[in-house]
């Protein structure tokens, strides 16, 4: 029985995709002799095959790749946004030189306009490790310093100072790297005020639900009526 426990662990590893080739060979060898382990292992393989087959496509991956490349060639407008900027970003030395020049120009301008010496303002585009998860309906985002509202896209990242606005019957989820989430409910407006060791949101109106992974750092949701500090892991704040 103890021997089979070992192979049941190997089957679990097989399911997880973390089994080594040597362990797999050992498992197969054992399965030939043990009916119980063989049945379990075969069921596991069959289940994977059945799911894979049911969710397969008629178009092969090669055909799909060729088709997308053809579309990209036909429609030059589809090229990645700011591709030239990315080129600079990815070219090591040139990026450092460009950054140095920009910094020098910035400092010079700051000095000329009499702003040198004042505390540096947080860059408008400071991206934080919070991504936009599920978006249902129309949820808009406005970056700090901008008057333009943009549609929130799932998979995009949040910036410091962003204001999120959900309309009627629209909700969205913000996902933190540690799996914590904030769900913005309908007809709500939420602002990310700070993300620097402590997380601070401002809920102007509406409702949001936070589900925080434990342990979490200082986490606050300010409202026009007061401040809510996260002590537990799951709570809802409503501002009417």
């Amino acid at each position, binding site marked *: 029985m103890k021997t089979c426990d070992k192979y049941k662990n190997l089957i*679990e590893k097989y*399911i*997880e*995709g*973390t089994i*080594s080739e040597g362990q797999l060979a050992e498992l197969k060898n054992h399965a030939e002799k043990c009916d119980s382990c063989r049945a379990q292992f*075969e*069921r596991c393989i*069959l*289940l*994977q095959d*059945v*799911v*894979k*087959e*049911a*969710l*397969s*496509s*008629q*178009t*092969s*991956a*090669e055909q*799909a*790749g*060729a*088709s*997308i*490349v053809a*579309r*990209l*060639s036909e429609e030059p407008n*589809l*090229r*990645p*946004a*700011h*591709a030239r*900027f*990315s*080129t600079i970003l*990815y070219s090591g030395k040139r990026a450092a030189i460009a950054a140095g020049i920009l910094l020098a120009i910035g400092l010079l301008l700051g000095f000329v306009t009499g702003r040198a010496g004042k505390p540096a303002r947080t860059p408008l585009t400071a*991206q934080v*490790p919070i*991504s936009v*998860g*599920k*978006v*249902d309906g129309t949820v808009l985002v406005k970056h700090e310093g901008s008057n333009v509202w943009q549609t929130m*896209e*799932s*998979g*995009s*990242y949040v910036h410091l100072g962003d204001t999120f606005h959900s309309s009627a019957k629209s909700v969205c989820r913000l*996902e933190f*790297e540690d*799996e914590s989430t904030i769900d913005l409910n309908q007809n709500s407006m939420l602002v990310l005020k700070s993300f620097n060791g402590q997380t601070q949101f401002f809920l102007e109106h509406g409702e949001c639900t936070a589900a925080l992974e434990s342990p979490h750092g200082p986490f606050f949701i300010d409202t026009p009526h007061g401040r809510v500090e996260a002590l537990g892991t799951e709570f809802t704040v409503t501002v009417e």
Partner: protein
Amino acid sequence: MAVELEQNMAGDHQLVRAALLGETSAFGAIVEKYWNMVMALALSKVSDTTEAEDIAQESFLKAYSQLINLRDPSRLAGWLSKITLQQCSNSLRRTIRNKRALGCRATSVKALDEQSAMTANPGLTQNQIQFVRQTVKNLPDKFRTMIIMRFVAGLSTVQIAEQLGKRPGTVRVRLHRAYKLLRKDLAPILEEVRS
């Protein structure tokens, strides 16, 4: 396994970098690598194969146009899965809205899912395919993506954790729970296929 993981991520990093430099063939390689995963995610939301293929194509085109927003290229698969699920939601909403605009009685999401299915592999019957897709569809969201990344894309729990930004332990637990649910719900199909 660690070497394989590093190679996979380094590969994604290089492909993304090349695609951003304008090499469409590099993006073609990304499509080839993740087409099955994206298609499976789409098919786990909308059973109609043609619609799922449209969603998969649109997802890749959207990913290409927004590639600059991909903060960490080593999480390409997780990023693609989020885009695909969002495209699925948009597609389902659009279909229902179009039906309403045409004066038809709105088809429920469930009814849409029950439309005919086609697959490349003739091993399963149409009914069995529908049953399996419906079972996968009924899984909670957090389980479904992991099952597809594991069984279709062939990623290990460690790789899935990296892609989704979760802890490996969390992924392992969820994958086993999902596996148990599937094993229970698909038991009749497994018996039929085996016999």
